[in-house]
C-alpha cells in the first residue's frame, strides 16, 4: 500500500519551472530515496509535499487523502514530519524545549516518554538537554532536528540531506538511526540525498532526478549496479581502452 502518492507534480519558483511532472510512490513502511545532483529539484519536491510551496499542477495523496494546498502546520498535523536541509533547529531554545516543540501538535500524555525515547536513540543529546541548540555541534543539531521530527509521532518522515556536512562516522551513525527508526517504529521515510552511497545502502527503492524530472527508478539494489548511477553518483568510472571515454558515451536516459 502506498502511504504517499504523487502524480504529475509541477512546481514553479516564480517563472522558473523547478519540477517538471514528477510522479512517485512511497509504500508504507519503506525507505524510499530520491537522488540527484544540485538543482535537480529534490528539495522542491519535499517542500511541495510539506506545503511550503504550492504546486501548479498534479496531485499529492497522503494515506489516501489529498493534502494539496494545505498549510504546512495542517500537513504536519496529518503525520508528515519534514526535517529540512541544514539543521533548522530553534537556536535559542534548549534541546529539551526543541523536542517539546516537536510535539506541539500532540495532546496526549506520552510526550515525556517520547522525549526519553529520543534520548535513547541519540544518547549524545541527553547530556545536552539544558543547552541552547545554537551551542550544539553540526552533528548534534542534525540529531536534534531528526529527534524533534520524531516527537511528532510521524507516519512519514521527509529527510532532506541528513548527511550534509557531517563526518563519515556521523553519516554512518545517522544512517543506522534511520534504519532503526524504520524497522523499530515503522516510520516510512522519504530520503533526499546527495550522498548516493549512503542512501542506496539504507533505501529500499530509489528514484533518480535530473532537472526537475524523474529519469530512473528501481530498487536500490539494482540502482547500485546500474552503470549510470555508478558512474555519475557513486564515482566509479570505467576507464576506456585507451584511457579515454568515448564522446558518444552518455547516460542511458538521454
Amino acid at each position, binding site marked *: 500500500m502506498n502511504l504517499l502518492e504523487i502524480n504529475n507534480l509541477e512546481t514553479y519558483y516564480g517563472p522558473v519551472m523547478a519540477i517538471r511532472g514528477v510522479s512517485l510512490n512511497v509504500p508504507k513502511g519503506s525507505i524510499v530515496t530520491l537522488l540527484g545532483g544540485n538543482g535537480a529539484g529534490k528539495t522542491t519536491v519535499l517542500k511541495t509535499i510539506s506545503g511550503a510551496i504550492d504546486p501548479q499542477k498534479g496531485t499529492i495523496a497522503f494515506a489516501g487523502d489529498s493534502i494539496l494546498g494545505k498549510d504546512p*502546520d495542517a500537513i504536519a498535523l496529518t503525520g508528515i514530519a519534514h526535517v529540512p536541509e541544514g539543521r533548522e533547529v530553534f537556536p535559542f531554545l534548549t534541546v529539551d524545549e526543541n523536542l517539546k516543540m516537536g510535539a*506541539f*501538535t500532540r495532546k496526549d500524555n506520552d510526550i515525556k516518554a517520547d522525549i526519553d525515547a529520543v534520548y535513547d536513540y541519540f544518547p549524545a543529546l541527553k547530556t545536552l538537554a539544558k543547552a541552547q541548540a545554537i551551542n550544539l555541534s553540526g552533528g548534534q543539531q542534525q540529531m536534534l532536528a531528526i529527534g524533534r521530527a520524531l516527537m511528532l509521532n510521524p507516519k512519514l518522515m521527509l529527510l532532506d540531506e541528513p548527511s550534509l556536512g557531517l563526518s563519515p562516522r556521523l553519516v554512518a551513525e545517522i544512517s543506522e538511526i534511520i534504519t532503526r527508526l524504520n524497522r523499530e517504529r515503522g516510520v516510512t521515510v522519504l530520503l533526499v540525498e546527495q550522498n548516493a552511497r549512503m542512501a542506496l545502502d539504507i533505501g529500499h527503492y530509489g528514484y533518480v532526478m535530473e532537472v526537475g524530472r524523474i529519469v530512473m527508478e528501481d530498487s536500490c539494489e539494482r540502482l547500485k549496479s546500474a552503470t549510470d548511477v555508478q558512474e555519475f553518483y557513486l564515482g566509479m568510472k570505467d576507464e576506456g581502452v585507451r584511457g579515454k571515454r568515448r564522446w558518444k558515451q552518455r547516460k542511458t536516459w538521454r
Partner: protein
Amino acid sequence: MEIFQLIISGISQGCLYGLIALGFVLIYKATEMVNFAQGDLMMLGAYFAITFVTVLEWPFFWSVLATILCMALVGAVLERLLLRPMIGEPHFAVLMLTIGLGFVIRAVAGAVWGSEPKALPVPYSGGVIKLGDSVIGYENVAVVIGTVILCLLVWIFFRFTRIGIAMQAASQNQLAAFYVGIPVKRVYSLVWAISAGIAGLAGVLTAPVSLVDPLIGFVGIKAFAAAIVGGFGSLPGAILGGLLVGLTEQFAGLYLPPGFSEMSAYVLLLIMLIVRPQGIFATMQKKKV
C-alpha cells in the same frame, strides 16, 4: 533630595516608554514588522478606559481588565485584516501601512471622543507617599507597579507556557516552526493581541498622569528610541531603554536649558547608535534568509 524626586518621576515616565517599547519589540521579534501605530494603540486604550469608567460607569478594576481585553481584540483584528495580507511584501510597505494606521486611529479617536483633553478618574488619584522631602504621587507608583506586574506576567508566559515557547520558536526559525506544526499565522495574531493589550495597559496607566487627547500617541516615537537604545529585539532591553530615556529626560529638564528635555531622548539615541549601535542587550541573532 531633588535628585531622588527626579529619579522617581524618571522611572515612572520611563516605565510608560518601556511598556510601549515592549509592544514594538514583541511584534518586531515575531513578525519582523515594525508597528509605528503602537503609541496610537496606547492612546486608544486610554480612551477605552475613560469610556468604561465615565460613560458606562464600570468599577475601575473591571474597566482596566475590559480595556486590556478590548485592545487585545483590536490588535488581533488589525493583524488579521491589515497585516496578514502584507506577509511577504517589502518592509517599507508594511512601515507605511502602520504609519497610516496611526493616522487613522488618531482621526477616529478625534471624531469619537473629541480633541479636547479628557481625564481618567482613578480611585487612587490625589494620594501621595512622602519620603523625606520628596513627594511621590500614587499615579506614579501605580505605573511602576503595573509595569513590574506586566513584565513578570510576560516573562512567565514566554518562559514557561507551551504557547509562549512556541512563539519564541516561531520568531527564531519560522520555517522549522511551520514544519513542527506550530500555526505560525495564528501566533502572529496572538503577538499583535498581546502587544495591543500591553499598549492598552500603558494607556490606562498614563491617563491619570497626563490628560488624554488624540495626540498623546506621539510618545510612541520616544518609545521607539527607547526600544533601539535597549537593543531592538530584546524584551528586557525595551524596559531598560524606556527607563534610560525617562531618566535622561527628567535630568535634562532640570539641568539643561528649556527644550533639551524634549529632545534628550533622541540625543540619547544618537549617542547610543554611535557608541553601541547594537543596543544595550544586543540580540546576536543571525537571520536566516
